[in-house]
């Protein structure tokens, strides 16, 4: 295969231009999806992390089972199960609903573990000092512990967010027309892989600034520790 053949099959600017309107639609869907699932995951994760501070066995064991299950289950399997399996249980879900639930379960478990580590990184004395001044447990968590916890694990939170945005591409299996789904549509119509390459470029442009930010944060944390 010559360079020209490769360029025609993968870097065909003409086809990319033709596919660009539906790729833009896909990009919009991907951004909307991310704006839905990242906050959902963060909310779920925060709830799980806060529950993890409860030492009672009736909370601890079910919580552990929950987090382990949804971290171990491949997100694609989980999504297919929710979308295609739940109707058998009498629950018909639209694609968006299935994606929202799937991500809430999966990314919530991941964010939860990150935030739990963050909470555990804050010395006990912080909670005690706050409580000694009359703050309730909730207030002490909100004003004293969580801000420090989030700061301590910020690089991990951002890194996980990057993964989540990329993972939104699995919504294509439930026919949600996000970026990858649209690129593959264009690919099958044109018999050409160039739309996929274009989609890859779009993902890169979208996420690269975040990757840079992450590196800077990580370097700063390393420097801070030194």
């Amino acid at each position, binding site marked *: 295969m010559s360079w020209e053949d490769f360029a025609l099959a993968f870097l065909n600017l003409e086809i990319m231009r033709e596919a660009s309107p539906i790729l833009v639609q896909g990009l919009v869907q991907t951004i909307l999806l991310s704006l839905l699932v990242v906050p959902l995951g963060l909310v779920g994760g925060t709830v799980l992390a806060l529950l993890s501070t409860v030492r009672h066995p009736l909370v601890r064991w079910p919580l552990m089972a929950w987090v382990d299950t949804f971290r171990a289950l491949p997100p694609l399997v989980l999504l297919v199960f929710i979308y295609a399996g739940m109707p058998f249980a009498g629950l018909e879900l639209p694609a968006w609903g299935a994606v929202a639930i799937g991500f809430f379960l999966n990314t919530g478990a991941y964010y939860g573990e990150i935030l739990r580590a963050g909470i555990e990184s804050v010395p006990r004395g912080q909670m005690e000092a*706050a409580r*000694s*001044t009359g703050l309730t447990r909730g207030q002490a968590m909100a004003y004293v512990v969580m801000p420090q916890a989030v700061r301590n694990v910020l690089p991990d939170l951002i890194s996980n967010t990057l993964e989540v945005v990329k993972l939104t591409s699995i919504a294509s299996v439930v026919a949600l027309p996000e970026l990858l789904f649209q690129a593959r549509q264009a690919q099958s119509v044109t018999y050409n892989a160039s739309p996929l390459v274009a989609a890859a470029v779009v993902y890169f442009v979208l996420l690269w600034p975040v990757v840079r930010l992450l590196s800077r944060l990580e370097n700063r944390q390393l420097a801070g520790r030194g």
Partner: protein
Amino acid sequence: MTSRPIVEARGVHKHFGTLHVLKGVDLVVAERELVFVIGPSGSGKSTLLRCLNRLEEPSAGSIVVDGIDLLDRRTDINKARRRIGMVFQGFNLYPHMTALGNVTLALRKVLGLPRAEAEARGRVALERVHLSDRADHYPSQLSGGQQQRVAIARAIALEPRVMLFDEPTSALDPELVGGVLAVMRELREDGMTMVVVSHEMGFARAAADRVLFMDDGLVVEEGTPEQIFGAPRHERTRAFISQIERH
């Protein structure tokens, strides 16, 4: 008139699992009194102090502070804690807040004061520990002694009826101890009721009304500083005093 004691702890027991850390301790502190608690590590003195604002839950006994029964189920412990200031060995300042932020958090969230009023009161508290000029500094920008003084300001800003000090100078470099003790002495002169767990004997001699020696979960001996440091009756007290005097 004999006033009601500020702190009245009776028969306090504390178990940590199989460990019996407090074995029936009584502690009564009158208004404006400064009580010093000394004893070897593991004697239970810090645990006793932490029971007095229920950071530790006593296993048995009764604790009444300023007329409030701390162990009564109906007591709102968060409300009660406003009257009990605490200063920790490790300062425990909030590192993400300025000195003023540390002092005003409870004023705003517990007392519900508007920000401006809380900050005015916070600045007064910082002035009392001679750190007005450090209000906008973060803890990491302050020396250990300054951090501990901010922690004292954080506690006194709530105008507590009693202040608990848990080894307030043990984590400090020697040259920074004086500033913290000076602030504590001023508090005492202003009439603050204080319970201090510490080994600063010079301070105890100069400022304490009473010294308790604890060992193995019990109060072994108590008396004036002169009695305890000068003529301890019990063998264990004598051994402990001679040990800390060697330092």
